[in-house]
């Protein structure tokens, strides 16, 4: 591990990267000024509502003078860019990058809602709920890939689990049993992936593709044969949101974070548990060592196969939980191909987040934000096709993958089958 962190240090503080980042900050500043600020008339105000719809509160709206806000954001970003070019922020560069990107997005919102009002709290709340399946999918990927098994089957696992959760939930009349069925479906497909890629040493990407094809076919088959025609087989209901006492009363943050359903809270718990377990326990060290250097791990007495099986099974269960969100956590009904590529976006979020739980969460929030903003743009009357905003996460992932913003540190033995000698 020592070499990895050393390498990381070098990469983060390299002079080329310092310059690239500085220029990027300046570009974002120029973007705020040219794209948003220049075309805005003076005297307009932007109003942000700070309470999500449907909740009673006498919190006042947040009114900002549009042009002044944009100018401040642009100047501050430019200043930070200048500092970065001259002396650099060193290890805090990524944090600054997050801030400047945040300014850019905030500038965009201020500009888009100029002379108008935008429900900021509602937007953030939608962002959070849209990011739930992406985050959970990414966590599934983190579990598998940290142990050295590439999992592109997240999409298929989610889809199959979504269907089973709805089907079993409707038949049994219990949401909890439906949820359990979803998790078990994920585990079952995880087992298939594990057996194919660990025992039979099938190429892991092909094995994942098989599961995706299978899940797409079987869910469409069952759905067309039973669930579309018999409504009672596809009506599980949903987990209702509930407020956490005390925390839910915090102004602004409370209604956004602490008035959600089971899946959102579970996501936060999984995030914390998985971060701690992976990076501060013996279990996590073993799991990661299997993903980094299985031969060395084997020499030290760690059972590589068992560790990988366990990781892929847990990853499958996580993907199953993510899939159940679609039916019993949000829509209350199964539709064909309803996951719509969220599993792949989860995979992208995992890469974006550098194979760490909280990194993935951050990336998922970004993707969820782009998703929820796309539906708001039309309402605000902004002249950008929502499809282009929808492309943003994919393009951002490709940029990250290309190493423009700094190369991620993927597990060294990711995707390689282990052969015991």
């Amino acid at each position, binding site marked *: 591990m020592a070499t990895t962190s050393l390498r990381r240090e070098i990469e983060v503080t390299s002079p080329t990267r310092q310059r690239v980042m500085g220029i990027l900050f300046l570009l974002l500043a120029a973007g705020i000024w040219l794209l948003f600020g220049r075309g805005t008339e003076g005297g307009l105000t932007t109003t942000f509502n700070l309470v999500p719809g449907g909740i009673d509160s006498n919190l006042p709206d947040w009114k900002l003078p549009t042009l002044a806000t944009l100018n401040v954001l642009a100047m501050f970003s430019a200043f930070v860019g200048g500092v970065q070019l001259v002396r650099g922020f060193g290890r805090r560069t990524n944090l600054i990058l997050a801030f400047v990107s945040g300014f850019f997005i905030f500038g965009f919102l201020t500009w888009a809602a100029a002379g108008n009002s935008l429900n900021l709290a509602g937007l953030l709340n939608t962002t959070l709920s849209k990011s739930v399946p992406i985050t959970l999918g990414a966590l599934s990927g983190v579990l598998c890939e940290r142990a050295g098994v*590439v999992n592109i089957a997240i999409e298929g696992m989610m889809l199959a689990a979504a269907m089973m959760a709805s089907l079993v939930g409707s038949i049994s009349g219990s949401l909890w049993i439906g949820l359990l069925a979803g998790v078990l479906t994920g585990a079952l497909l995880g087992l298939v992936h594990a057996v194919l890629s660990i025992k039979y040493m099938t190429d892991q*990407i092909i094995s994942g*593709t098989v599961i995706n094809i299978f899940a*797409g076919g079987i869910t469409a088959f069952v759905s067309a044969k039973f669930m579309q025609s018999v409504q009672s087989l596809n009506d599980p209901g949903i987990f209702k949101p509930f407020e956490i006492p005390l925390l839910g009363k915090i102004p602004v943050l409370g209604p956004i974070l602490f008035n959600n359903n089971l899946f959102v809270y579970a996501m936060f718990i999984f995030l914390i548990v998985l971060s701690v377990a992976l990076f501060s326990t013996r279990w996590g060290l073993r799991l990661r060592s299997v993903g980094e250097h299985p031969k060395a791990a084997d020499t030290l007495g760690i059972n590589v196969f068992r560790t990988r099986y366990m990781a892929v099974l847990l990853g499958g269960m996580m993907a199953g939980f993510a899939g159940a969100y679609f039916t019993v956590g949000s829509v209350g009904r199964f539709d064909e191909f309803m996951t719509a590529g969220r599993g792949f976006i989860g995979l992208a979020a995992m890469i974006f987040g550098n194979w760490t739980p909280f990194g993935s969460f951050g990336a998922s929030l970004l993707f969820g934000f782009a998703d929820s903003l796309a539906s708001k743009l039309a309402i605000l009357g902004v002249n950008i*096709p929502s499809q*282009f905003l929808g*492309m943003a996460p994919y393009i951002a992932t490709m940029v990250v993958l290309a190493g423009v913003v700094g190369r991620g540190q993927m597990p060294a033995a990711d995707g*390689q089958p282990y052969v015991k000698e």
Partner: protein
Amino acid sequence: MSDKPTEKPDAGKVLLEELNGGPPSHLPLSRRIGRTLLIPALAVFSGLVLGAILIAFTSQSVYSAWSISPWEAVKAGINEVRLAYGALFAGSIGDPARILDALRSGDSLEVRRAFNPILESLTASTPYIFGSLAVALGFRSGVFNIGVEGQIFIGAIFSAFVGYAVTGLPAIIHIPLALLAGALGGAIWGFIPGWLKAKTGGHEVINTIMMNYIAFRLSDWLLSGPMKRPDSFNPVSPTIQPSAMLPRFFQSPIRFHLGFFIALATAWLVYWLLFRTRWGFDLRSVGINPRAARYAGMSIVTVTIMAMSLSGGLAGLAGANEVLGLNHNLAMAFSSGYGFDSIALALLGKNHPVGVILASLLFGTLRTGATRMQVVAQIPIDIITVLQAFILIFIAAPAIIRTIYRLRTPETEEEEGVTIRGWGGG
């Protein structure tokens, strides 16, 4: 188990041996062909058996017969499967009795109708041939092009645009132009991930998946805006000029068109390129052993970029074929997952053009028959996708097939040249 030849000193010799599939075999040709076909054939057979089990287990009549006796349930299950697979056969190849009757009666419309299923199967196979050639070419060169679906979309967009926007050309120029436009579109969509892989190491699997979604959004935008048919409420492009339509050989209802023969010619071209030119030798060398290929002085960067562009171009032809030959316009849902099916077909065909054609014919046939099966036996067409997944599992893990049928493991393991190395691509 790990007798990998990477440690041997003579890289050139190793490379040549690997390219020719190990040391020269002394088996006669017929035995070798039989051996090559055995696993795919058993995989397809096992897939059909599993499909039959799925049909029986999801059938209402089997469950109602179960209440009488288990034996009745088995009989009902067999009946159900016979009905389903019978419809599958009649819908894809044709009903033999009907063909004979039609020929005897001499009624030309009746003859056309009787032969329609098999010609429709050939038509349905055409995009599969292009798509799986694209995947196979990628695999041979060591890249996994999972983005065929997106490349098909872009190819379709390009050829549809040339098809309806360019006017006043004779068919002899317009058709090749529209086809080339499709290939160009796909090639661009393949070039980007290829370039990214070669220059930055970004893995093509992730990048092509991302490019797929970008392609969907892009076509969504184009069809609801710039390329939308002026008089329509639906997201659909204008109809292409008659001069850009691929000619059909028979009168309606037979849709069989020139695209099928273009696909066969393309397959031959890919074969010639891969196995008869120096250039194809480079591609295959990099695919099999990049280290040895670099040692032999080949440029991995060039080969990777070329392979992804060519692969994308082939996929683009699939999109062009659908637009110019069948639909004559571009709609959002024109591709029913050809790109993803193509991965399965390329593997089933062992990444060889001949194998790819056979696999594509099989799946075109299955898909055509499944449409009829859906009507006759109320079995959703999606069962074909499930079958495909089963077959793909058996192809990807031949050890399962060997275990089921108690086959001997051949001493020279000629596994297909699928070589993917983690996300980093190194």
